[in-house]
């Protein structure tokens, strides 16, 4: 007499519950997995090309391409050099007018106030797009290299972008800090006040940002400005303009 194995019964009669539970479990796992994959992908993309690139090196390469050389000669020689013609200021609605008030947080969360700063000397104010744009940040590298020359004229350099302080700090950890304040202008409000940012008429779209360099004198007036699609890296011009407003320029530069 052959007897039926009980295991055969179990295999041939699966419970109706497992018919529903198994696909349900698989679906839940698939949905959860897809969310995980998506957020991982998004996190990697947000860190951006920035994490996979060496922005500092790209900025230095950009300066080399622009033939930038740090100023090595003494200040007297920089100011006296008769062969050098300073780049004139551009026109600007606020040229020779009072600069818009500026009070923003630096990377350490401290407030930086223009009015307090200019009491100590002229201010070089630079608007740059942010520490993800290699040629924008190259101007900051150029200023950092010649910072001692600016300090010699009691001038202060300050850079502004819409980058949050945390992002700038992150870049500092990776590439080293700049030795002047870098301020956070959330929403480019200050850049807009200085005519360096035009919001887009379309909601949710990026506005247009210009590179902007301003020299503000001790009285709070904008005395020199340059804006455009390229960073301004002629520090010699900035130093001579500062020396001029401070009455330290030996003789007026020759004009052709």
């Amino acid at each position, binding site marked *: 007499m*052959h007897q039926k194995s009980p295991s055969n019964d179990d295999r041939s009669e699966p419970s109706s519950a497992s018919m529903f539970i198994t696909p349900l479990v698989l679906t839940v796992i698939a949905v959860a997995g897809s969310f995980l994959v998506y957020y991982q992908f998004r996190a990697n993309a947000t860190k951006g090309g920035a994490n996979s690139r060496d922005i500092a090196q790209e900025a230095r390469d950009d300066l080399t391409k622009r033939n930038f050389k740090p100023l090595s000669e003494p200040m007297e020689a920089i100011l006296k050099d008769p062969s050098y013609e300073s780049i004139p200021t551009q026109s600007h609605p606020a040229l020779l007018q009072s600069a818009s008030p500026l009070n923003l947080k630096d990377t350490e969360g401290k407030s930086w106030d223009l009015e307090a700063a200019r009491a100590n000397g002229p201010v070089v104010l630079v608007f740059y797009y942010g520490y*993800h744009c290699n040629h924008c940040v190259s101007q900051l590298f150029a200023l950092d290299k010649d910072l001692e020359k600016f300090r010699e004229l009691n001038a202060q350099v300050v850079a502004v972008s819409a980058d949050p302080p945390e992002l700038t700090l992150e870049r500092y950890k990776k590439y080293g800090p700049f030795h002047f304040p870098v301020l956070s202008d959330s929403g480019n409000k200050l850049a807009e006040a200085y005519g360096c940012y035009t919001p887009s008429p379309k909601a949710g779209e990026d506005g247009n940002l210009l590179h902007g360099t301003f020299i503000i004198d001790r009285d709070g007036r904008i005395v020199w400005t340059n804006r*455009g699609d390229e960073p301004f890296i002629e520090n010699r011009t900035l130093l001579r303009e500062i020396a001029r407003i401070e009455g330290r320029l030996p003789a007026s530069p020759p004009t052709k």
Partner: protein
Amino acid sequence: MISKKRNVATLVVKVLAVLLAFPTLCWGGVEPHVTFKVEDGWIALTLRKQGQPIADADLRIIDERGGAFASGQTGVSGESTFPMPPGKSFLVEVKIGERISDPIRIYQKGAEVEPSRVLLSFGLKPCCRNVYAKQSAEGSTTNDSIQLDDTSSPWIFVFAQLLLASAAVGVWLVLFRHDARNSRSMENDDSRSDERSA
């Protein structure tokens, strides 16, 4: 042979010229600049580009109230003169060919005017970063960072995963049924062989 040497020399000169011009192009010195000088109550304006005078440029002087005060053209030496407009400031517009400069506001300061030198701008272009952002959105390669498209939705991933899950469930069901059918047929075979043996 001589012409070949001449061609090489011309090429070298051209390359050198480009290399020398590059830094100038970079700092924007390529645009013309205007110099203002007060002489006997008149203003002498000189228009130059890289040291060379620009002749036949159209000039328009607008007084403080917004009214047209004077107009004219620069001469061969790039110079033009006009009397000092009334008021504390006035505007100067320069048209070179088809390009009209952004207006320059000049202020009277005693016997002088300031600014005395101005680099002309012709409708400032935004930072090329904006262009890069647009290019990357259009799928072009860019030297700059790539912006994440915030409009991308997790539901695309969910939908894709659901499709995969459905396929997996489908396969599982097919295998399950196949397994059940095999079991049933084995059971039938067993019962038939039982009957035969009985």
